[in-house]
C-alpha cells in the first residue's frame, strides 16, 4: 500500500518537479539541459506507468490511493485521492508515452526558440495536470486536472505571444473551454447534491444500489457533463477553438490538441459510463452530435490549405466519431479509437511539424510539393499514418474505425451513413494533404528549395516509433479476439458489446468501409496527382468551396450572435449602469468625506479638553459598571 502511494506520487510529481526546475532555473541551465530535464521528467512518469500497468494486468485489481481528506461539509466528503484502474492506467500509458516522445521531439523542434525553458516548463505542467485529471479518484480531482490542462493549453497556444492573432486564438480556446467547464461544474453539483459524493467508486455503488433514482435529474447531470466534454473535446457547438489552437507550436498541437487533452471529454464520459447508461436520451444526443461534428469537420477539412488546419479538422472529425461510439454505449470502442488516433494523429502532427520545420515556418500546402525525396522518413511515416487514419486494412485505424461504424450500423443506419461519409472524406483530405505536400514539383521559393533537408534524429525517431505504433496499434483489439475489451471489462456494468459475431454482415460492412476509404484515396489521386491540380489562391475560391473554406462562417455567426450581443450589453452597462453605480459610490465617499471634515473640528488638539472628556468617560464607565445594577 505504501509502495503504491509512493509510486502514484512519483508518477504525478515528477513532471511537476520538472516544471519547477524549468520555470525557476531553466534559463540558466541552457537549452539542452532544460529540454533533457523536461523529457526525463515525463519519461520517469512513463516508466512508473509501465510498472503500474504491469501490476494491474497481473493482479487485475485497481489501486486506490487516498492522500488526505480534502473537504468535509455535513455529509459531503471528498478525498484527495487517486484511482489507478484499467482505464486510467491505459490513458496514462499514451499520455506519458506519447508525451515523452513529443518532449524528445521538441528538444530539436524548439531549439531555436529563445524561450525553450518556458516551453518545457509549460509542457511538463501540462503533463502533470493531465495525469491528475486521469488518475483522480473523484470528479473534483478530475476537475483540477481539467482546469489545469485548459490553462496549459491557453499558455501554449499563445506561446508565441508576440503575435496578436495567436493571443486571440489562446483566449478563444480558453473562453470556449470555460463554457464547457461551467457545464461540467453544474453536472458535478447535481451529482454531488443527489448522492453526496463525487467519488467514482462510491458513486457507482450508490447508483447501482439506489431503488428510486430521480432519472430526469440524473439525465440533466449527464447532459451538463456532456457539455463539459463538448468544450474540452471540441464538439459542436464548441469546436471552433481547436482549429484556431493550431497557432501554438506543432508539438503542442500533437500532444495537447490531438493525442491527450482533447480526449479528456471521452475519458470523463467513459469514467462515468454508469451515469450515462441511465440516460438513454442523452446518449442519443451524444451520438447525434458526434456524427454531425464528424461530418461537418470533415467537409471543412476537404478544402483547407493550411497543413495544420487540415489535421485540426481531421482531429475534430475523429473525436466526433469517438463520441458517436460513446453515444451507443460502446465505450471500449471509443477508447480503442482514442488510442489508435493518438498514435497516428500525433505522428501526423509531428510529421507536419517536420515539414514546417524544413520549410522554415511555411504552413500553406500550395507552396509545398515534392518533399518526398528531400524528407523520406517524414514522408514514409506520414504515409503510414495517413493510411491508418483512412482505414486501409491492417493499419491500426482500420480496426478502430471499423468497430465504430459497426456499432453505429447495429444501432442506427442514418448515423452509420453519416459516419461512413465522414470516413470517406477523411481518406480524401488526408491523401490530398499527402499528394500536395510530398509529390510533384516543389512550389515554394528557390531559396527554400535549396535548404530542403530531412530533419534531425530527435525529430525522426519519435516519428518512426509513432509510425510503428500506428501500424500495429490495432492488434490490441482485433475483432473477435479483443485484448482491450477483456482488459476494460471490469469497468463497465453492461456486458460490453454483446460478444461480436463475425458474420457476413460484419464482413460486408468492413468491405464497404475499406472500399470507401480506397475511393477517397482514389479521388484524391485523380484530382491532385493525375490532373495535377493545386488549390486556387484565396481570391478565386467560389461557391460551395468558399463556404467550406470559410468554415461555414461559423466564427462569423458566433461573432454576430454572441460576441456582438455581449458587446452591446457591455456598452450598455458601461454607459448607464456603471455611471449610476459610480455616482452612488462616489456620493457615499463624498458624504463620508464631508462628515469627516466636520468631525475633525472636534479634534482641537487641546489636551485639557481631551482630559476633561476622558474623565467624564471614566465616570460614565465606572458608574455603569458599579451603579447601574
Amino acid at each position, binding site marked *: 500500500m505504501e509502495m503504491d502511494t509512493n509510486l502514484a506520487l512519483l508518477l504525478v510529481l515528477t513532471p511537476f518537479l520538472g516544471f519547477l526546475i524549468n520555470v525557476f532555473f531553466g534559463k540558466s541551465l541552457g537549452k539542452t539541459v532544460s529540454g533533457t530535464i523536461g523529457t526525463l521528467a515525463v519519461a520517469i512518469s512513463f516508466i512508473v506507468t509501465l510498472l503500474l500497468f504491469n501490476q494491474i494486468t497481473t493482479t487485475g485489481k485497481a489501486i486506490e490511493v487516498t492522500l488526505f481528506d480534502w473537504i468535509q461539509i455535513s455529509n459531503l466528503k471528498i478525498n484527495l485521492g487517486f484511482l489507478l484502474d484499467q482505464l486510467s492506467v491505459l490513458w496514462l500509458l499514451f499520455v506519458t508515452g506519447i508525451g515523452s516522445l513529443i518532449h524528445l521531439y521538441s528538444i530539436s523542434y524548439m531549439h531555436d526558440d529563445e524561450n525553450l525553458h518556458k516551453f518545457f516548463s509549460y509542457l511538463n505542467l501540462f503533463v502533470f495536470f493531465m495525469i491528475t485529471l486521469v488518475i483522480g479518484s473523484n470528479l473534483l480531482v478530475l476537475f483540477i486536472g481539467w482546469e489545469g490542462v485548459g490553462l496549459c493549453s491557453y499558455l501554449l497556444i499563445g506561446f508565441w505571444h508576440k503575435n496578436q492573432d495567436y493571443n486571440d486564438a489562446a483566449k478563444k480556446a480558453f473562453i470556449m473551454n470555460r463554457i464547457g467547464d461551467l457545464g461540467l461544474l453544474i453536472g458535478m453539483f447535481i451529482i454531488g447534491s443527489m448522492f453526496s459524493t463525487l467519488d467514482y467508486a462510491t458513486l457507482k455503488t450508490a447508483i447501482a444500489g439506489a431503488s428510486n433514482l430521480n432519472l430526469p435529474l440524473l439525465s440533466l447531470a449527464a447532459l451538463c457533463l456532456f457539455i463539459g466534454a463538448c468544450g474540452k473535446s471540441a464538439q459542436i457547438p464548441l469546436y471552433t477553438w481547436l482549429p484556431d489552437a493550431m497557432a501554438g507550436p506543432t508539438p503542442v498541437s500533437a500532444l495537447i490538441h490531438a493525442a491527450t487533452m482533447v480526449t479528456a471529454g471521452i475519458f470523463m464520459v467513459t469514467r462515468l459510463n454508469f451515469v450515462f447508461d441511465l440516460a438513454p436520451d442523452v446518449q442519443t444526443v451524444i451520438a447525434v452530435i458526434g456524427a454531425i461534428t464528424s461530418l461537418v469537420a470533415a467537409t471543412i477539412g476537404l478544402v483547407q490549405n493550411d497543413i495544420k488546419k487540415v489535421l485540426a479538422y481531421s482531429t475534430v472529425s475523429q473525436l466526433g466519431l469517438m463520441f458517436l461510439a460513446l453515444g451507443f454505449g460502446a465505450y471500449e470502442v471509443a477508447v480503442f479509437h482514442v488510442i489508435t488516433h493518438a498514435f497516428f494523429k500525433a505522428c501526423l502532427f509531428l510529421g507536419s511539424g517536420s515539414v514546417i520545420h524544413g520549410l522554415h515556418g511555411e504552413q500553406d500546402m500550395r507552396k509545398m510539393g515534392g518533399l518526398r525525396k528531400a524528407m523520406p522518413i517524414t514522408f514514409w511515416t506520414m504515409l503510414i499514418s495517413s493510411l491508418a487514419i483512412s482505414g486501409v486494412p491492417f493499419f491500426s485505424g482500420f480496426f478502430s474505425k471499423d468497430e465504430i461504424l459497426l456499432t453505429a450500423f447495429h444501432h442506427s443506419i442514418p448515423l452509420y451513413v453519416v459516419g461512413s461519409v465522414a470516413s470517406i472524406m477523411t481518406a480524401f483530405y488526408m491523401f490530398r494533404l499527402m499528394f500536395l505536400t510530398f509529390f510533384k514539383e516543389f512550389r515554394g521559393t528557390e531559396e527554400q528549395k535549396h535548404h530542403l533537408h530531412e530533419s534531425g534524429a530527435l525529430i525522426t525517431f519519435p516519428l518512426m516509433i509513432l509510425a510503428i505504433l500506428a501500424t500495429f496499434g490495432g492488434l490490441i483489439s482485433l475483432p473477435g479476439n479483443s485484448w482491450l475489451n477483456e482488459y476494460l471489462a471490469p469497468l463497465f456494468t453492461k456486458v460490453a458489446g454483446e460478444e461480436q459475431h463475425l458474420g457476413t454482415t460484419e464482413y460486408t460492412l468492413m468491405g464497404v468501409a475499406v472500399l470507401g476509404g480506397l475511393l477517397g484515396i482514389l479521388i484524391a489521386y485523380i484530382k491532385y496527382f493525375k490532373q495535377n491540380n493545386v488549390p486556387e489562391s484565396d481570391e478565386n475560391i467560389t461557391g460551395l468551396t468558399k463556404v467550406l473554406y470559410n468554415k461555414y462562417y461559423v466564427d462569423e455567426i458566433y461573432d454576430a450572435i454572441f460576441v456582438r450581443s455581449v458587446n452591446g450589453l457591455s456598452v450598455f452597462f458601461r454607459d448607464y449602469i456603471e455611471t449610476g453605480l459610480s455616482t452612488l459610490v462616489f456620493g457615499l465617499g463624498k458624504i463620508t468625506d464631508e462628515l469627516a471634515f466636520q*468631525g*475633525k*473640528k*472636534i*479634534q*482641537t*488638539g*487641546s*489636551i*485639557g479638553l*481631551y*482630559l*476633561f472628556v476622558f*474623565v467624564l468617560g471614566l465616570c460614565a464607565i465606572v458608574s455603569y459598571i458599579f451603579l447601574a445594577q
Partner: protein
Amino acid sequence: MDNILNQIGIENYIFLSVVLFCIGIFGVLYRRNAIIVFMSIEIMLNAVNLLFVAFSTYHQDAQGQVFVFFSMAVAAAEVAVGLAILVSIFRNLGSISIDNLKNLKG
C-alpha cells in the same frame, strides 16, 4: 499583634485614597503648567499606592506591597523620561503650558 485597622478602619483609608485621587484628577484638569500636571499624576499614583498598602494589611499579605514597589519603579522611570521631554519642549517652545501642545489636532 493588634491589627491597626481595628482602630482606624479600612473605610477611612479608602476615603482618604479616593479624595487624594480626585485631587490628582482635579490638578490635572485645573492647571495648565505641565510640571504641576506631572505632580498631580504623582499624587494619583500615591493614592493608589496607599490603597495597596492598606489592603495589604487588611489581607495580611505582602503581595500588595510588592506591587507598590513596582509601581514606584515605574513612577520613577516615568518621571525621569517625562521631565526630560518637558525640558526639550521648553527648549523648543519656551513655555511648558499644555495649551501650546496642539499637535494632536486633527
